[in-house]
């Protein structure tokens, strides 16, 4: 029975983390049709900024420890904004006419560049900024202890998911965005400022990536290479759910998270294959992902 609880809660926690990591990726793809390989680098930059600032706050300040959460989120927002603006304005906006596959390669080049840039900026020593993680203590659920920070992450993740959905489906901006998603040319004809929409979307996407990194930073040791590790995971989630769909990312994250949790508890030997297995299975049955749309070509 406890195992059952554990599978569920562990699955939820992992799924919420996966969603955090994948949200920015799917938003950018949905609107801009860019499968952003550099997404992991935004995650890493967010994690590094947050870890270094929070580490500095705790070592050089004696302030209220709870303020560190604000710092954490603040860092992510600033980092995401700066990186997003620089990359969008400095590079991507000149590339929007290029084909979808070439955009993957462009962002692959970005990934290579950002990996080393992060290393130059933050060094290779790990940042171990545990305070925000340890501060919240733990709760006992069904005889098993869970870190409150992780449980809180589930809520944060749900809020972000809901937020994205509401913006897309219940606001004017969302309506315009959906028009852009549906048909870029018609949207332009209708007077939508697509360039502005793209810039905004990209910045929101990078900020979501940085936020995921910042929120993860307190529970890990932030070191080189963390960005590369999350890319493929995020890809898997997004592809399973359907590229560019927020609902898809939520469902994809839940599916991958729960399956992995099941594997860890019941068959740890197959854990390594779970993610790719789920991805291949879903694609084999439903090539466009669970929530993806197929567009029949008009002739």
């Amino acid at each position: 029975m406890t195992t059952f609880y554990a599978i569920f809660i562990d699955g939820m926690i992992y799924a919420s983390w996966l969603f955090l990591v994948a949200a920015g990726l799917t938003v950018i793809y949905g609107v801009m049709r860019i499968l952003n390989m550099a997404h992991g680098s935004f995650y890493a930059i967010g994690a590094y900024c947050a870890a270094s600032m929070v580490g500095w706050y705790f070592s050089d300040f004696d302030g209220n420890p709870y303020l560190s959460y604000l710092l954490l989120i603040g860092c992510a927002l600033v980092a995401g904004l700066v990186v997003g603006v620089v990359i969008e304005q400095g590079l991507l906006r000149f590339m929007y006419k290029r084909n979808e596959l070439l955009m993957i390669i462009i962002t692959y080049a970005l990934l290579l560049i950002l990996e080393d840039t992060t290393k130059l900026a933050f060094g290779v020593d790990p940042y171990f900024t545990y305070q925000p993680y340890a501060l919240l203590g733990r709760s006992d659920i069904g005889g098993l202890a869970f870190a409150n920070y992780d449980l809180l992450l589930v809520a944060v993740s749900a809020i972000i998911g809901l937020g994205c959905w509401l913006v897309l489906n219940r606001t004017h901006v969302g309506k315009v965005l959906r028009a852009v998603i549906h048909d870029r040319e018609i949207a332009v004809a209708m007077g939508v400022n697509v360039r502005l929409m793209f810039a905004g979307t990209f910045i929101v996407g990078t900020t979501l990536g940085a936020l995921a990194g910042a929120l993860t930073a307190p529970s890990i040791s932030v070191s080189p290479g963390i960005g590369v590790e999350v890319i493929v995971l995020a890809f898997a989630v997004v592809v399973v759910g359907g590229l560019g769909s927020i609902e898809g990312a939520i469902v994809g994250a839940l599916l991958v998270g729960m399956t992995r949790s099941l594997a860890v508890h019941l068959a740890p030997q197959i854990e390594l294959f779970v993610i790719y297995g789920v991805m291949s299975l879903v694609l084999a049955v439903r090539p466009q992902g669970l929530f993806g749309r197929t567009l029949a070509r008009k002739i």
Partner: protein
Amino acid sequence: MIHIDRSMVGLAAATLILAAAGGFVPDWLAFILTLALAKALVVQGVVLQMRAGLVSFGQGLFFCVGGYAVGMGGHFFGINDAPVLLLAGALAAVALAAVLGLLMTRYRDIFFAMLSLALSMILFGVLVKSSELGSTDGFNVHPATFFGLSFKTEAYKTALYLLTVLLAGGGALVLHLVHHSGLGRMWEAIRENEIRVEYLGLSPRWLLYANYLLAAAFAALGGGLTALATGHIDPEMSFWTTSGEFVFIALLGGTSHVAAPMVAAVLFAFVRTYAIEFTPHTWQMILGFVLLGIIVFLPKGLWSLVRSEKRAKA
């Protein structure tokens, strides 16, 4: 029926020059060229797919199959002849591709890229789990013979270099024919407009299936040669970053000529080696800028330099 054109004569000449150079160049250079040309074979396959409009982020799958076939042939089956091992690798890859191709030919664009990535990562997972095959550490490949002849250290490297040059050159010649054949041009037609190809009475899936199998065979050959050259194989061959490198080189060269992947692979090897040497901490960044530069300034790859020159003259 087969018309011998300037490219073919040029390729044959270049192959002979490279082969002859084997006697003069220092060992380390011969080794870099061996690895680069082996890689070029894999990239030929990636280019083959790109000409049909598909980008694979999982060509490492067949590269790895070729490498492991060579390693396992020596370790478990007592086969030690390089040509036999390479052939076995290519056959194994084609057999695997024949199965996977049934699935893969249903996909295009990003879905093809992602599914190919997933499949190669599954092989990676299987190999990591196989402790008999050394898990992530992999294992060393037995020195091979060449058509029954065995060579000592120096001569061995030269023999391998020659074999690689001949396979890379011969492979390029064959592909040159393929690219200009009815089938080869039909792949381009699919990239341009699949629906039209269907309405010309052909099956795009069948055409792409042939493409997938051929690309797999080339990747396996490259993998086998790489395994023989480095004397070691590990699951990294199937990791997605390895496949990413192949795509990188393919873009570097461009898809317009079969010589492009070879030039690009050699150039890539040098850029990387010197980047690692002069800036050991930021070599990836240099590769990143090179890639961006190519995309921005030479969208059709390095070979477009040659092409545009030719057009200007004409």
